[in-house]
């Protein structure tokens, strides 16, 4: 492959992965915007979504269908409905039982609780890998990575070109962009979305306006979780391998993206996700894979030192 072809290829890979990171980052940033809590368990929620998707694949027998058959598209759509509902619901439950009563307490308590939830999720992922289903290797090696069957064709849409842009990439782009449009419409135009923005801006004022704050916060967790669920499905189909510790890395990448873009800002999360995705792809190619994580971390530190409000974030002053 020529130099420019390599560059283009990495661009595609970077953007695709970046979109997945962006989806996860959106969930982070929505929850942070509303209760100023970093939901540590978000990355692990994403991981559980992947496992849920694989379970669905196993139950529907999708691993036996050849890619392209109509059953496959049906299965895909079903996954894109069930998994986000699952993740959203789980996230809602977590808020209800682990965070809600800690709203007023010191800043450390909800954080520590979130870490606890993250660990519980990780363990669930570990045990889930041991479920005696064929997709999970019949429960033989619970902790081992699981293969996700190739459901979407790897065929290159660009024909004979050295650069590959497959249906998978198209799917990633399609799902992510349409979801972002949907989210923007939701936050700007629906009543629930406006209530979320109100609570994010000023919780007390929103309460005085009659907005049921706890319910809105729960809804935010649900939507944020749903986004993670979509990201899980897309990731699993795109990358074809899942393991119970993947939430950790995904969480850090997504958090870095959210901070880079400006935490609390939805377009910021998208921008941040794309930048991180591209940075990872280019670092993998032009420097060395083993330094990619260091690069992401360095980006995080640089942003937090030089521009903590992020690229698109507002420089908010804390009222005392």
């Amino acid at each position, binding site marked *: 492959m020529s130099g420019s072809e390599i560059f283009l290829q990495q661009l595609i890979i970077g953007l695709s992965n970046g979109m997945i990171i962006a989806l996860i980052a959106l969930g982070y940033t929505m929850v942070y915007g509303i209760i100023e809590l970093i939901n540590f368990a978000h990355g692990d929620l994403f991981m559980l979504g992947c496992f849920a998707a694989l379970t669905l694949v196993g139950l529907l027998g999708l691993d036996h269908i050849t890619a392209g058959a109509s059953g496959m598209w049906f299965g895909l759509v079903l996954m894109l409905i069930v998994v986000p509902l699952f993740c959203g619901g789980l996230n809602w439950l977590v808020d209800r039982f682990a965070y809600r009563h800690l709203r007023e307490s010191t800043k450390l308590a909800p954080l520590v609780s979130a870490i606890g939830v993250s660990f519980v999720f990780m363990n669930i992922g570990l045990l889930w890998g041991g479920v005696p289903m064929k997709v999970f290797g019949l429960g033989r090696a619970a902790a081992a990575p699981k293969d996700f069957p190739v459901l979407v064709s790897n065929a290159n849409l660009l024909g004979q070109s050295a650069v590959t842009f497959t249906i998978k990439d198209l799917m990633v782009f399609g799902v992510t962009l349409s979801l972002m449009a949907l989210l923007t419409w939701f936050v700007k135009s629906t009543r629930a979305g406006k209530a979320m923005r109100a609570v994010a801006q000023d919780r007390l004022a929103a309460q005085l306006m009659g907005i049921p704050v706890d319910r809105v916060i729960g809804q935010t967790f649900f939507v944020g979780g749903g986004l993670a669920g979509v990201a899980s499905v897309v990731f699993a189909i795109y990358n074809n391998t899942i393991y119970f510790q993947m939430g950790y890395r995904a969480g850090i990448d997504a958090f870095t993206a959210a901070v880079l873009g400006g935490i609390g800002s939805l377009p910021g999360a998208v921008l941040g996700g794309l930048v991180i995705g591209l940075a990872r792809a280019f670092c993998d190619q032009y420097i060395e894979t083993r330094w990619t994580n260091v690069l992401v971390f360095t980006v995080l530190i*640089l942003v937090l030192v*030089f521009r903590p409000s992020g690229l698109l974030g507002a420089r908010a002053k804390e009222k005392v």
Partner: protein
Amino acid sequence: MNLLEISDLIVRFGGLTAVNSVSLDIPSKHIVSIIGPNGAGKTTLFNAITGIYEPTSGRIYFGGGEVCRPFRWTTALTLALIGIIAALSLVLIVNVESLWDTAITANYAYQQTFLWSKAAGAVFRYFGEEPGRRVIIPFLIGALVGLAGAYAIWERSRRAPEVAARAGIARTFQNIRLFNQMIVLDNVLLGMDSRLRTRFWHAALRLPLYWRERQESEQSAMEILRFAGLDREAHQLAENLSYGHQRRLEIARALAMQPRLLLLDEPAAGMNPAEAQDLMKLIHNIRDRGITVLLIEHHMPVVMGISDRIAVLDHGEKIAEGTPHEVRNDSKVIEAYLGKDD
């Protein structure tokens, strides 16, 4: 002689202008009150003076100078040092594997003696081979990032609250902010902290300085508590104190800082007339010790009873200023509090 001079201060939060071009002079050893309806910008003004908010524009002069960390030659030295360390670190990090290989792995045979001079020579040769890529570029990048980063962090902390505190401005808060998990005595000792000289090794090894300073500081702290009338509760947890005593404790902690200017934010809130009288006596005693007092208060008897001068804020602007008598009869003030007859 003015201890504090506020000139054309503007504090804006996004679209909201909380303080709009306020100018105020506080003469030394006076008691000045700031009054006004809620939301008039009084606490914001305090926060700007003590460095919690950064003014959008305007100046605040305390004791003749601005309240910010000066850029001294020691600051430049520290920044330069951090830059150099960052630069050297980056050179090391970028080259660490190759350095290790050429210096150590190549020259060391298991359990033989290691010739340090030979290794040093190898290191110099390694750097000499490709000085640009291996030394100069990482050094420059590291120095740049290190310097810029250190400067960014320093710059953002120039007007931090501790700077105002050490310059001699102490304050209390509208919603009491005590250290509830600590006892009363410790709260006061904390106020003194900036003047203590015990370092962690004195404490760790219990050197004589630790014992001496502990005894002296506890004595001073008890004295302050006696002054504030709290000495009998010195070993109670701060959160167990009565509301009125908690307010006094906040004042005691502020006094422990040996300030020249004391900012009290609604000290009489929630007090009954007897407690308010005691508070007025306390404030007078504080002034008699040579401390200038600036007070936000709604409790009119207190305001009228102790102020030398009063400034009135409404909607972020100063609408009146003068002696208690002048202010009481100012039509604009009456209008701000009671509304206009339409």
